[in-house]
């Protein structure tokens, strides 16, 4: 389906590939995602191993950034405590649109092992920021990281990027109506 696949079957024998601009933009966006690495706990160590040469996370076109302003998505790797939750929200708000969130590990998915008695642990980072991809595991295996990254690329690839304002207005108006009804 991708643009690149059509290179083998170009229009009228050579040089021209037909496709939408949206496809081209999405292809570019999905293949060069820079991330804000936010290592919090044990999962971050596994993510370090993921970044090293054995698993080579950068083959997905990802580069770790240290500033939220340069990042396309944020990787929350580890236990989110109440004290930390505030900072994560601030960091997320500092990122420029379009932005995505990957939640890594049971802890940031749901509180994980600290779900029941952890009085200082946030029960899932999705309570404060919207999460796009959840990677399960405690800590997730490197294969899971890869799968999660591929899911995010898939998601970016399928996004509609034109007429965003119009669509948002439409959504808002239908929301208002449904609010009135209920």
């Amino acid at each position, binding site marked *: 389906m991708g643009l690149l696949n059509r290179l083998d079957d170009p229009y009228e024998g050579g040089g021209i590939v037909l496709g939408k601009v949206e496809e081209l933009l999405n292809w570019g966006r999905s293949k060069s995602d820079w991330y804000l690495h936010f290592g919090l706990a044990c999962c971050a160590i596994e993510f370090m191993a993921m970044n*090293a040469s054995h698993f080579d996370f950068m083959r997905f076109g990802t580069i770790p950034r240290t500033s939220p302003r340069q990042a396309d998505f944020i990787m929350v790797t580890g236990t989110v405590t109440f004290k930390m939750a505030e900072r994560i929200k601030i960091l997320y708000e500092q990122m420029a649109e379009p932005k995505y969130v990957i939640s890594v590990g049971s802890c940031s998915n749901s509180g994980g*092992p600290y779900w029941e008695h952890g009085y200082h642990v946030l029960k899932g980072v999705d309570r404060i920021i919207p999460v796009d991809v959840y990677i399960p595991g405690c800590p997730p295996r490197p294969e899971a990281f890869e799968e999660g990254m591929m899911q995010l690329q898939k998601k970016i690839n399928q996004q509609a990027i034109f007429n965003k304002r119009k669509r948002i207005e439409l959504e808002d108006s239908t929301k208002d109506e449904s609010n009135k009804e209920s």
Partner: protein
Amino acid sequence: MGEIKRMDLEYSQLDSDRMRINVGPQHPSTHGVLRLEVEVDGEIVTEVVPHLGYLHRSFEKHCEKLNYQQIIPFIDRMDYISAMNNEWPYVMALEKMLDIKVPEKVEYIRVIVAELNRIANHQIAVATFGMDAGAFTPFLYYFRDREAIISILERLSGARLLYNYFRVGGMAADIYPGFKDDCLNVVKQVRKTNAEIMKLLIHNSIFIKRSANVGILTPEVAINYACSGPVLRGSGVAHDLRRDEPYSVYDRFDFEIPVGKGDVGVVGDCWNRNIVRVHEMEQSCRIIEQALAQMPETGDVKAMIPKRIKLPKGEVYMRTENPKGDLGFYIVSNGTDKPERMKARGTSFVNLSVIPEISKGYMFADLILILGSIDIVLGEVDR
């Protein structure tokens, strides 16, 4: 176009107040989620205040709520880089309380996995320390080697990072066929890489310039702050629980305790703290080789595991040599299957407390190196 106005600066009148800045909790080179409040006078650090609690995961509360076997996974998650070493003092404390004598083979397996984990821990420590100084290649080399260790531990326990492998009175599983060969291969590879790292990083003149004579910790200060592990040994104090208070079968091995000698820089600086870790890997290799040779072929690793653990009333304290220093567990039992109270002496927490003392008067960029040379894990600091 207007005329360019010249600004005449009277430098003596410039206000040079001290400035307070935050390093962390989100910062590329703090280790974990530590937040340091730093007061700087220009580039010179005048005060450092660590702020903790960003990874407080209610460890002691969990210990009150769960029974003795269920606590082991939470101990893994304290110092998550060296999970095997963490579990050991805890199960030993319980064995001491229950008066269990573990089989010979179990002791040897424990020694081997703990030493393997110690190597993995030091690899991360030296690699990240190199990264703090701007050297990225050692990171790639060490992580390539670490993968071999991780795969051995994974085949033993089923997990890559948090093993949950120790049991009271035994191990969760026996070793697999080919375990010995794998260990010997790892030992060979570790030695080869360390020889390379010695040239590439340790004796690299840029690295020496950055890390020698920085963050000097004198032996007196180290002892006063109760530092332990490579931080203390880097200051020239040969203190190692494996030799001074031999537990398990450590008295049967022949190994040395590397200390910082000041062949580069002075005793107790960042370079010396770092070199101790590299030498310790070699000593761990020696221990592994001896343990593999002495390990009995037969023996049931699960024979002594009790079905239900109920401790007699009383209290127990057990400490061992973690890769980062002394790790101790203090357990108060009330006679049920859950501890009444449990306290861990976190190594990283104690070692971290020396930061304000040793980073005063150095450049701001050195602060990151000093932090890296102490090798802390925030999971153990905040618990």
